[in-house]
């Protein structure tokens, strides 16, 4: 099984030179650490920044400069600030090349559930519903199974949806999985596992791609 860092490392391969990318909270945030330095990639933070840099040095902390996780950050050369309406024009209008977010469940139709569990305190969807509705490509970083071994890749999500038919690819701790025509397609399996094992660990229908291969991670 892949570590959180290895999932992030694999997702970084989805990022292309020139992309504008929105990374969600959790594993998606770690993806930034693995984007090659020679690539020109602009990270978008939906609170109003395109061109997000690393955390600041103590002396550079600025209360007026935070990311969507409310953490202090910096900017990169070429950065811009804008209002929330402009930010979501970018997102909803299809100007963001890739969004990476976490999920509680994804199903074989590409539906995603990641914002609420009925009966538990619901904190809100933040920008997630807009991101899955509007980004050109939606990649989900998630654990393949829950703690009791039940697959989070399902035939149909049973938690409330965040968006319908919007997920393109999942990178889990067990593999790289695309959403096909009402089925999961296994593209890569994690080192130390087989394609059959990943299929067995998946709740929905899974087809193993003819050219399935072992994932390359450090």
């Amino acid at each position, binding site marked *: 099984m892949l570590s959180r860092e290895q999932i992030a490392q694999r997702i970084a391969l989805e990022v292309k030179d020139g992309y504008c990318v929105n990374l969600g909270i959790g594993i998606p945030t770690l993806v930034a650490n693995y984007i090659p330095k020679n690539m020109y990639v602009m990270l978008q*933070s*939906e*609170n*109003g*920044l395109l061109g997000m840099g*690393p*955390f*600041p*040095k*103590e002396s550079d*902390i*600025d*209360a*007026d*400069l*935070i*990311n*969507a*996780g*409310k*953490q*202090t*950050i910096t900017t990169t050369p070429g950065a811009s*600030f*804008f*209002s*929330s*309406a402009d*930010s*979501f024009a970018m*997102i*909803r209008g299809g100007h963001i090349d890739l969004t990476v977010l976490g999920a509680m469940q994804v199903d074989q139709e590409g*539906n995603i559930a990641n914002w609420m569990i009925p009966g538990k*305190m*619901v*904190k*809100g*969807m*933040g*920008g*997630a*519903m*807009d991101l899955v*509705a*509007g980004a050109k490509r939606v990649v989900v970083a998630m654990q393949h199974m829950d703690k009791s071994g039940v697959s989070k890749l399902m035939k149909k999500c049973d938690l*409330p*949806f*965040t*968006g*319908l038919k919007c997920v393109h690819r999942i990178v889990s701790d067990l593999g790289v999985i695309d959403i096909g025509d009402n089925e999961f397609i296994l593209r890569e399996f994690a080192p130390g596992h087989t394609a059959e094992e990943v299929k067995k660990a998946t709740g929905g229908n899974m087809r193993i791609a003819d050219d399935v291969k072992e994932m390359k991670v450090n």
Partner: protein
Amino acid sequence: MANSKVYPNAMKALEDVKDNMTLLVGGFGLCGIPETSIQALKEIGAKNLTIVSNNCGIDDFGLGILLKNKQIKKMMSSYVGENAEFAKQLLSGELEVELIPQGTLAERLRAGGAGIPAFFTPTGVGTEVADGKEIRQFEGRDYVLEKAIKGDVAIVRAWKGDKFGNLIFRKTARNFNPMIATAGKITVAEVEELVEVGTLDPDQIHTPGVFIQRIFQAKQEKRIEFKTISQ
């Protein structure tokens, strides 16, 4: 003439806030919130407020202090996770909440200020957010009808403002402030630095003064929610 918009402090600028009003409040997390105005609202004590703001502060800062003081009847926000008091009042039924996707919230406020009563968005189609709302197809895709939001009083925080109400925001403290500034019957701007008309470069104005009815200068604490540093 321009001086008629200038108020000495938050208490004076907000003295018309009454029970049961709808207030629009700028900011994202604790960044760019009109913190002095929020303190003043606590002093004024108006109750049963509906507050439209992306978040609800933390327990002892920002909108959290109005929550603690039981002045809020309903919150309309995209994310309310940083606040223990929020969960308590929600579970006990004292507080109502309408959770709105962040982009939809921004656009509903923009629409409210721009004379657009409603609009169709793809965000939330097929989710609980779209329950009971009109769905219409355009070019083969489903969209949900969302309505504009307007407020009795809108309160924003800017970096610099002049006496006509022209505003410049700073970095990510801009966030929801420009839309909120347009959507209030009365809009109050709290600025870090109030300058004479003619001082600000017209090319750099983010919010033109026409949207602002009252302005005052106030020192900001600018509390940081999560201080993260690189080694």
